[in-house]
């Protein structure tokens, strides 16, 4: 089992979701986060006071998958989120030790999907 954490552009969330549904990945957690990597933000100006290097709005996805879903999920995220510009985001893949469905208390791979 793997846990995929992806940081993407807010404007790309809809496309990423569509690609994931196409791969039949239906279980995702989405949060709004702040951060930046190499991308410089859009300069904000308030009454002439310039505000650069600000943290940018990003979307963070968390998706737990069984091994056979790993590559299709990664491909779906890349397909939906990629523009080729800096700031497209990152995908992190972590080993997932355990997964428990609270309703049935099932454990492991069966509990993920």
């Amino acid at each position, binding site marked *: 089992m793997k846990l995929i954490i992806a940081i993407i552009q807010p404007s790309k969330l809809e496309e990423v979701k569509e690609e994931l549904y196409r791969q039949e990945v239906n279980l995702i957690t989405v949060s709004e986060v702040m951060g930046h990597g190499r991308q410089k933000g859009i300069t904000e*100006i308030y*009454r*002439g*006071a310039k*505000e650069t290097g600000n943290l940018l709005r990003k979307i963070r996805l968390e998706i737990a998958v069984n091994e056979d879903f790993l590559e299709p999920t990664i491909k779906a995220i890349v397909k939906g989120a990629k523009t080729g510009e800096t700031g497209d985001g990152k995908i992190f893949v972590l080993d997932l030790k355990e997964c428990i469905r609270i309703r049935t208390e099932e454990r492991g791979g069966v509990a993920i999907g």
Partner: protein
Amino acid sequence: MINSGDTAWVLISSALVLLMTPGLAFFYGGMVRKKNILSVLMQCFIIMCVLSLQWVLFGYSLSFAPNQGFWGGFNWVGLKNVGFTPYPDYAATIPHQAFMIFQAMFAIITPALIIGAFAERMKFSAFLLFTLLWATFVYDPLCHWVWGMGGWLRNLGALDFAGGTVVHINAGIAALVTALILGKRVNLDKNVPTPHNMPFVVLGTGLLWFGWFGFNAGSALAANGLAVNAFVVTNTAAAAAGLSWAFVEWIHNGKPTIFGVCSGAVAGLVAITPAAGFVSVIPAIIIGLLVSVFSFIAVTVIKPKLGYDDSLDAFGVHCVGGIWGALATGLFASKLVNPAGADGLFFGNPKQLIIQAAAVLVTIGYTFIVTLVIYKLVDLLIGVRVKKEEELIGLDLTQHHERAYTVLE
């Protein structure tokens, strides 16, 4: 002789001017960081409470009771002798108490304007004491000099229709003084605090613009042609200034902003305030177009250069706009608009400009010194600034034990 139309208009205008203070609360509240919005709303609302009482108890008497001296004196304390028959020297066709309550709203909003300078770092207890002392020892005497019977600036012939000197220059200078001696907010160099809720700024601007019709057109103290003139030039100057600020930004920064349009509209409303009962519509456009240029320079060039932290630009908008408005009155005033007024420079009377400039300088000098003294006194008694940790946590939690926005639910 009481005129019911005049009385109705002044009562409605009083309500309109009262609404400006909550409007200002949102105008300022949107500009601060979200950890401080309640402190700003609280300061505005508590001023409505404190100064409403101060005014009926002794503020109105100190400001308006006829007297040649420093103050209006104590004859009208507790509204003694202030009844329902007109007091013709101020307003011949409305009950005296209607004039009193209209003026109360001005006494409320003026100290509220100063909040913009010390937002996000002043202790609430110190703010309360400062405000009460400032209203009593700065606003009330100045109000008497300019508007009260026996006031020496009034006798000098200074024109201030609705409060350019008394309200805006006065509050603006007090703002500068407090910003200078209170010092900058923590971490300001590393991080420019960005307004946390721009829609609140827009909402507040809308309420201010709406309320300002009471402020200026109500200052005619009658439902007549003069009130209509004030109404028309007020709207015109605000429109010209909002547009002008947007274009200055467009040229200077590449993009126009809603914050800029709001700032410009308020600056325009400030600038037309002293002139509203003395100028016609074309001068109003000129006053509006230019005030945004002056205020823009004040907040984007002069402020960073001098390095004072007037958090929300109370000085840059109100004092700069107020000075321009007071001087513009000396340029554009015309007896064709108001026979009880005077002609300005462009209508053949250069002396009026000098009188206007004198009134501006007196206001600046008096307010600067007395505000400084009051600030030092309050600092000595209870300390003005919050502790550094309190400032970092935010005033909502540390001064009031509440927060504006929850994270969960």
